[in-house]
């Protein structure tokens, strides 16, 4: 994958400054005092126990969906269906959460998580098989499956799994199935730790195991070009890698949905809205398709989001402004041509060479 370099840091820095200037203008024009809003924003993102916990809590699904993206991209598959897996995993985590009544806390939670992973993963089996054996573009099939997932969970919450006669929702999950919330002032729960462990585990598997090597060797840098000739030439079963990668990706999506239910929502309802599966793609790209990069980018992204929520809560400023600003920032970070065009400046090249040497 593209390696981190000084240029990226520089672009991020320049991008942030430009984004802040645009924010400044936007806020001034709409009649606010940018300094104060900025202060509130910063406070909401990272100041105080409650805000920090909320930021971490928001980050949990982003970490998982961005890593789901990383895994699929690095086997060469362009998986846009992670959001669908989230819905499926969330629905079945909720089902398992109220269905199994005679289990202890740890077995019950583990079972719910396992079911979220397995169902999210199976959701990706069809596009993976269609791609490998029939050449159907996974981009198309996973987009379509997102719609199917929304309709399917909506039907299930309204029909077979419905408990409440008034609202289309499943029963509340049992206490034994809950992911523990540690603090009274925040929904922060143990799901965050699962996500962080998954990030490091994925890094380890991709980078340090033969299984990870087989997954990556055919796909790295070849998103959308699967199957690569390189892996079939070496005799690495690239079909198997591609399917496995998609299943892992879907499983992580399912896990993200499951944790949202078991840790935050505690039941599944028809209007439940997930979009972290889509944001995860962006975050993964910002994180340069590395698991740890995805982890860091998710935390960064959530801090910005939470800062925005805080501003929205405290003032009249519209929350959408944050979305606009985030988008501008993403624009800069993903502008690879802009990054490489920095090479024309001598000091950039020198610093680049300097830092590269440091890393080695």
């Amino acid at each position, binding site marked *: *994958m593209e*390696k981190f370099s000084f240029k990226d840091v520089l672009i991020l820095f320049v991008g942030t400054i430009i984004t802040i200037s645009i924010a400044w203008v936007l806020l001034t024009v709409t009649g606010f005092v940018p300094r104060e809003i900025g202060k509130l924003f910063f406070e909401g993102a990272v100041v105080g126990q409650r805000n920090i916990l909320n930021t971490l809590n928001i980050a949990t699904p982003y970490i998982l969906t961005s890593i789901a993206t990383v895994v699929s991209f690095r086997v060469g598959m362009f998986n846009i269906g992670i959001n669908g897996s989230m819905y499926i995993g969330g629905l079945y985590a909720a089902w398992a959460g109220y269905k199994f009544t005679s289990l202890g806390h740890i077995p019950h939670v583990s079972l719910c998580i396992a079911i979220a992973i397995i169902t999210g993963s199976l959701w990706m089996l069809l596009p993976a098989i269609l791609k490998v054996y029939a050449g159907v573009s996974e981009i198309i099939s996973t987009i379509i499956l997102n719609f199917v997932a929304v309709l399917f969970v909506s039907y299930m919450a309204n029909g077979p799994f419905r408990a409440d006669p008034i609202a289309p929702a499943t029963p509340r999950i049992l206490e034994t199935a809950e992911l523990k919330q540690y603090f009274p002032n925040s929904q922060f729960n143990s799901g965050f730790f699962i996500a962080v462990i998954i990030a490091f585990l994925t890094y380890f598997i991709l980078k*340090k*195991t*033969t*299984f990870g*090597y087989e997954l*990556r*060797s*055919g796909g*790295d*840098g*070849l998103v959308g070009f699967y199957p*690569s*000739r*390189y*892996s*079939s*030439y*070496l*005799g*690495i*079963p690239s079909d198997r890698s591609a399917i496995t990668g998609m299943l892992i990706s879907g499983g992580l999506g399912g896990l993200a949905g499951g944790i949202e239910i078991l840790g935050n929502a505690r039941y599944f309802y028809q209007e439940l809205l997930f979009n972290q599966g889509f944001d995860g793609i962006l975050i993964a790209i910002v994180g340069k398709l590395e698991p740890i990069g995805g982890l860091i980018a998710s935390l960064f992204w959530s801090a910005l989001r939470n800062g925005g929520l805080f501003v929205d809560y405290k003032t009249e400023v519209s929350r959408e402004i944050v979305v606009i600003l985030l988008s501008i920032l993403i624009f800069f970070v993903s502008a690879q041509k802009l990054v490489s065009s920095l090479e*024309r400046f*001598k000091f950039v*090249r020198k610093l*680049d*060479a300097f830092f*590269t040497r440091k890393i*080695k």
Partner: protein
Amino acid sequence: MTQKNIETAVEVKNITKSYPGVTANDSVDFKVLKGEIHALVGENGAGKSTLVKILYGIEQPDSGEIFINDKPVEINKVDKAIELGIGMVHQEFHLVPSFTAAENIGLGQEPKNSRGFIDWDKLNSEVSNIAKKYGLDVDPKLRMIDASVGIQQRTEILKTLYRNANILILDEPTAVLTPQETDELFEVIRSLVDEGKTVIFITHKLREVMEISDRVTVMRDGKVQGVSDTKNTSPEELAKLMVGREVFMQVEKEKAKPTEKVLEVKNLWVHDARGLLAVKNISLDVRKGEIVGIAGVDGNGQTELVEALSGLRPTSKGEIIFDGKNIESISPRKRRRAGLAHVPEDRANTGLNLKLDIWENLVGTSYFRSPLSKGGIISMKNVVEHSNNLREKFDIRTPGVFVRTGSLSGGNQQKVVIARELSEDPLLTIASQPTRGVDIGNIEAIHKQLIEIRDSGKAVLLVSAELDEVMSVADRVAVIYEGEIVEWVNPKDVDQQQMGLYMAGIKD
């Protein structure tokens, strides 16, 4: 050189260009006189390509000056180079296959008639006029899809001439040609110079330098090693300058001592990607202790034959017997395990994943084995040691094994492939175009390695479009033409001319 060549066409002074970690051009001075054929030679990674890319406006130098016709210029984009009368024929052609020669040549500069539409008649006649003037035999109405490689190359040259190029840069123009086509190209180059053009001829084939050029500049490690009149130098001297040490131009080997058959191909038929028959009823065998060569112009079924043997392409009919067992329907990995190694012709997409680090490409066939990995966990310490050993043994020039493979020069990339394939001590090595885009010092090393394999009692199947290579390295040679073996020859008994005829499908 004649009297008129007193002005300079191109002069660069003190050009420096560095990429992160590499100085591709280090204070390069390079001068080409008007009306001469100037050969630019050097190993891969010596900085030739960077230099001509700077001249053609593709890359910008960090420092230094460029003079065209004695005037200082700044060439910041390709358009500017074309405006200055510089034309370049790339190694890979940039042609639209479904367009005719004239359409390709005029693309972007089509003559318009009074109503603003393209004046095809004018374009066609202009093209044939230029073609006639320089002795470039091209039918303006011929579609490129139907044209031979030689014709395509002439079309590329015409494209530059149509844009009024006075200085032509030809990047390894003979790499894809048969000996006869090469001779024809040289005729064309001579007639271009007669008409007052200047030609910069990039190559690594020293025989051609001696034959065609007036002067020669040798580069190594980003620096100019020497400039001289061709008639005052010799291939040995040039090779020494290029490599920085004495090079043995002749491949030295003992007589082969072949023993039992390791590969036997019986009546093999293979279809290509478009579903057309590419290999027609080929039978051959390779014995331990010998190198069997397959000669032929590119695109005559070699690719499909090799892919069928290595398991990347299904066979249609026939048998492949390797080490006593039929292998035509088993997977590439099983064939590898049985002792079959394969250096593919397309190293960028097949032989390597350029996005991976060097070590990751080096362990592609061995990562699953102890001591490189245990219980599925890769031992970085052993992998790095293994990679560094191969790097040293095969002289892969890189700052380290944690470098992206794609950042290496073509020759070094090829060394990564060869290092990986030979590290397995295979029974049979299928080497397809193993020295394509590889420089002279490394060609020598690769040839030596192939002969070493043979002498250690293993077998080699060498497929190459490079006639010199097949003739000097192989012990027996099959000439392939349109998917069929035209003739088996002993390389000692035939000359280049006769081989050229076989390669064109002409048999006595």
